[in-house]
């Protein structure tokens, strides 16, 4: 019952962000399958994941994506070593409307099968992923 209520809270809770999502296309995340992490920058206001993604034409795209603040994503189990340079992962990102390879991080599928999400936009619909942890 408690779990059900937590799920229902996903609908009811407002989404207050540190920095908003105005710059990003929140309709469909871009999937970067087989991306190679080049740097994980553990800073506030937002940690940055940097990764190289090779597209179907063989072109390498250098991506940068932001996630919730260090204190927010720690509540979801993130640490400064959750992803590391050289990790081959699948990243999902809400790309900037400018069309540049930057965006708001959604989630990552790690090589061991674990999925880690963002706090503010980590749900599959772009909503908060930490809402289930809320009262």
């Amino acid at each position, binding site marked *: 019952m408690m779990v059900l209520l937590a*799920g229902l809270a*996903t609908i009811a809770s407002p989404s207050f962000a540190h920095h908003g999502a105005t710059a990003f296309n929140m309709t469909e995340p871009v999937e970067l399958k087989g991306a190679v992490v080049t740097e994980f920058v553990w800073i506030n*206001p937002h940690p940055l994941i940097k990764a190289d993604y090779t597209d179907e034409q063989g072109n390498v795209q250098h991506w940068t994506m932001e996630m919730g603040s260090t204190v927010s994503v720690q509540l979801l*189990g993130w640490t400064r070593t959750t992803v590391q340079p050289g990790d081959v992962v699948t990243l999902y990102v809400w790309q900037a409307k400018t069309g540049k390879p930057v965006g708001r991080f959604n989630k990552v599928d790690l090589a061991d099968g674990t999925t880690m999400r963002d706090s503010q936009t980590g749900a599959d619909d772009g909503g908060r992923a930490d809402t289930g*942890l809320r009262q």
Partner: protein
Amino acid sequence: MVGVAGVLLFSALAAAQGNAPRSPWKYYPEDARANEGPGGPAPVRDLSGTWAGESSGAGVQRLVRPESPPPLTALGKQLFDLNVAEGTGVTVAETNDPHVRYCDPFGFPRNMNDQIRSMTIATGPGRTFVMLKFMNIWREIWTDGRALPTNVGGRGPDAHDPTYNGYSVGRWEDDYTFVVETTGTAPETWATETGYPHSAEARVTERFHRTSKNDLTATTTMDDPKLYTRQVAMGEVHFRWIPSQTFFDFSCVPSSVQRYLDEMADPAGDPNAAQ
């Protein structure tokens, strides 16, 4: 559908966190969630302790947001029009919010109505401190009976310089309500995240009301006749007691903000920005 997604997500998170050994140095979401209900009566004349706020991740809901739009004077509107707040249609790259762009302090009263994460209240002889996790802020509230300063921001040897958190005095209105009055806050800071201004002469009144062991509410009003035609309701924020009493650091580091803007926010919000 969304509810089901939330259920699945919550289950996965709970499972993931359940495997890690518990550390007394961490603040876990369940610290706040486990504190369901009032937890007993409020202690008499005591707000001391560490509290989770709206943006803590602990699920605490704000009760009332600051009044918007507030009743601006002509000068107030002139100052407000200079401020381009981030929000609907305005990206991080486009705002001139001095905190977002330069890591400048929020200042009071914004630091009590924006980014309400966690707060610790500590009481000593003649003073109470309100400390805020977001940006590692402390506010000093004198309870020794002194009056607020006059001639703040004026000229002459008796003048008092405005400060980011202003000058504050506090008193118990009853056994569960602590009233704080503040003036002399730096006028270059914004009163709200939406960019409403305040002057150095603004007088802000906060009523901290503890209704139970676990629940504390702060209701704020602002009187600033230079910029507003009447008293402004600055909202009502709710805090919940954190069982572990852990209080994280959340600094603003200018070099980190600069890197975030250069490599992420400006390319995301400005098609002409270099990347």
